[in-house]
């Protein structure tokens, strides 16, 4: 950095670099190390390689495990039906450790070493945001299943897409009418004091206001907190609804302590199931949630009116009617989010086939083909429901479920409309160069 003269302006030397590469790399001992295997140009029959950036370790690991299962099931279904454009699909998995720095390295590794066609996966916002520059620089399409508003905010870049799950801003907005009409007009919000919580902090009050309801208190809780009781006195006595969105391993504690604090005389509770993904709703201490309501992306429990597509999806992924792994009722899935992996992979399939995708040289075409998508119909490829897609902000919008905890199960009591969650685009990725 200190030396800025022309000496280091080697951008034009890419060619000589490559020549040197061919000459030397093969001859050096380095070539023996596993990472240094040279890949030949993909042939038309070679599988399409999808780099799967996965939370295998770190704080997101509980989600990661189910993202992996769902994606594997989707890939199997796609391959059983002939693959993408006649080519088989292969997932190449790298762990991002739920860490943004490692996330960026993993994206670079997919692009440059594994030479995957695209990168796919990952949930936690900071990993997506940390990885986005690497995707843009390597010009490799990056399909995320994160539900964060970051993609739609147009603060990332043209190579990042979120076509399989509705972003959180839209989710929140579409909850407001139901909350105001059914739960109460005076809402106290409890949310984690970091970005995921800020989306709720910022987007809920205006949405409720539009419905004639008010947020009367906002309680932010630090992400490192493991005990919550001391914050509860800040909940105003006139509160009619407590709106809670906690994530991370401490959420069970949060609910239990809320129960100890209020006992049976509690306000209405409305929460985002993010709090309790991968957690059995019948865990000791959660009895308190009985009768409360949750947002669910896709319902955890099988519903009486489930479509055939939904049933087939559940069977393919291997979850039972209670949303737990078949054969292990204690192994509860992250059903409300993981469907996004399934649907995203089908969007990739559609876009690749639309683009006539042959290999990495067609990545720009793939980006444009994805941006050209408008709607996804409900069906085996989109079992959660129909969606519209805005190619300018790279974000899809779908229906949301509101479920009530009844007899130890989550029962869907309301489905929102796509229109409930639409908002004015904040920018346009398509104006950026490819």
């Amino acid at each position, binding site marked *: *950095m*200190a*030396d*800025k*003269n*022309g000496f*280091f*302006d*080697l*951008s034009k*030397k*890419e060619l*000589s*670099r490559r020549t*040197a*590469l061919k000459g*030397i*790399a093969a001859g*050096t001992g*380095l070539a023996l*190390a*596993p*990472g*240094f295997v*040279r890949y030949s140009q993909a042939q038309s029959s070679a599988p399409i390689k999808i780099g799967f950036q996965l939370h*295998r*370790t770190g704080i997101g690991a509980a989600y990661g495990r189910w993202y992996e299962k769902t994606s594997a099931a989707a890939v199997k279904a796609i391959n059983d039906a002939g693959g993408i454009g006649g080519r088989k699909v292969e997932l190449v998995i*790298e*762990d991002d450790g739920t*860490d*943004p*720095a490692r996330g*960026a*390295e993993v994206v*670079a*590794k997919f*692009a*440059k*070493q594994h030479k995957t066609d695209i990168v796919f996966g990952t949930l936690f*916002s*900071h990993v997506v*945001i*940390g990885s*986005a*520059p*690497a995707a*843009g*620089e390597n010009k490799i399409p990056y399909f995320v299943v994160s539900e*964060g508003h*970051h993609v739609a905010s147009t*603060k*990332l*870049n043209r190579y990042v897409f979120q076509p399989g799950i509705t972003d959180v801003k839209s989710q929140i907005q579409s909850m407001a009418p139901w909350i105001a009409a059914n739960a109460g007009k005076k809402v106290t919000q409890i949310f984690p*004091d*970091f*970005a995921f919580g*800020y989306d709720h902090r910022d987007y809920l009050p205006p949405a409720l206001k539009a419905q004639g309801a008010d947020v009367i208190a906002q309680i932010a809780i*630090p*992400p490192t907190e493991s005990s919550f009781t001391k914050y509860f006195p800040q909940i105003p006595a006139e509160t009619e609804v407590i709106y809670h969105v906690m994530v991370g391993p401490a959420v069970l504690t949060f609910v239990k302590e809320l129960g100890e604090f209020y006992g049976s005389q509690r306000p209405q509770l409305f929460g985002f199931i993010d709090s309790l993904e991968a957690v059995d709703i019948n865990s000791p201490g959660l009895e308190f949630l009985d009768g409360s309501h949750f947002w669910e992306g896709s319902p955890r429990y099988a519903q009486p009116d489930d479509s055939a597509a939904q049933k087939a999806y559940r069977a393919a992924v291997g979850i039972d009617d209670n949303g737990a792994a078949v054969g292990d009722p204690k192994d509860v899935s992250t059903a409300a989010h993981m469907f996004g992996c399934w649907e995203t992979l089908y969007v990739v399939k559609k876009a690749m086939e639309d683009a006539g995708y042959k290999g990495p040289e067609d990545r720009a075409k793939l980006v444009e083909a994805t941006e050209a998508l408008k709607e996804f119909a409900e069906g085996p490829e989109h079992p959660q429901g129909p969606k519209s897609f805005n190619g300018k902000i790279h974000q899809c919008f779908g229906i949301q479920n509101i479920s009530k905890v009844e007899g130890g199960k989550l029962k869907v009591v309301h489905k929102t409309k796509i229109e409930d969650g639409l908002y004015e685009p904040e920018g346009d990725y398509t104006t950026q160069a490819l």
Partner: protein
Amino acid sequence: MRDASPAKTYALHVGVIALLFVLNFVLPDYHQGLFARIMALAVFAMGYNLLFGYVGLLSLGHAMFFSAGLYGAGLTVYHLGWGVPEAFVAGVACGALLALAIGLLALRTSGVAFMIVTMMFAQVFYLLILYFAAWTGGDQGLVIQQASRVISIGGASLDLTNSTVRYMNALALFSVVLLITLAIVRSRFGRVLVAIRENEERTKMLGYDTVANKLAAVVASGAICAASGAAYALLFGYVGSSFASVQYSILPLLWVLLGGAATTLGPLVGTLFMYYVTDIASGFTSAYLLIVGVALILLVLFFPKGILGTIRERWLGWLP
């Protein structure tokens, strides 16, 4: 002995820099990128080594200096639209100023208390980043757009997102810091630092103001770590609070101990080793942390002075 082989020492360091230069043209794409990252982070380790290896001050808070550089550079580009060189200087200045303030306070303590105090100041810094999320992006962080990461001097422009330009910039920073470290170590100042590590009381009784010398070392260390952070932000386009977490205070300690504390090249070797163990192990198993853990324990059992430290002890006594 100090002056036994200056020629050999300089030849070694210039040789390492030359080798890294050649590697740019030899390494496969992915490893070229990884090396750029490693060199940028090795600067972090070198800054840490200056304080830990040579002065013997074990800080558990260096993430704050790294992220002072990261945010100092990143936020000036993001919010103020500064150019890359100005932003880099801003980052280094932030780190140096922070180090001066922290040094004045923390140097009142020593030993384990110094460890804990630095760790706590770093924790405060981390929480401040979260608290001012409106500007810093909090835990999600901010993306520095590609268009902002271009150095333009006169008519020429250097695009830091180009892999070779990035590599060369990382190498330039690494080389400059390596040579600065070498110069410090071989200087009279370096001799005093080592003396403080070996016996502070005795050093005082030779007429040295050890507190002032330690403060100078803290500031130098903080500035170098901040240079690494600033480079990281500008080269890789992301700033986020995870770089200020305690994990990033432990990492440089680990890299330095692995490579060999109080060796000029140890930080590079340690960073390189740790990165490749993680990268290769994660290719074989998802339980790569296990392999990293076992590797650490084996290293410390059989190479207690780190890789270069052990080499120096057994074979090459002249290594600086």
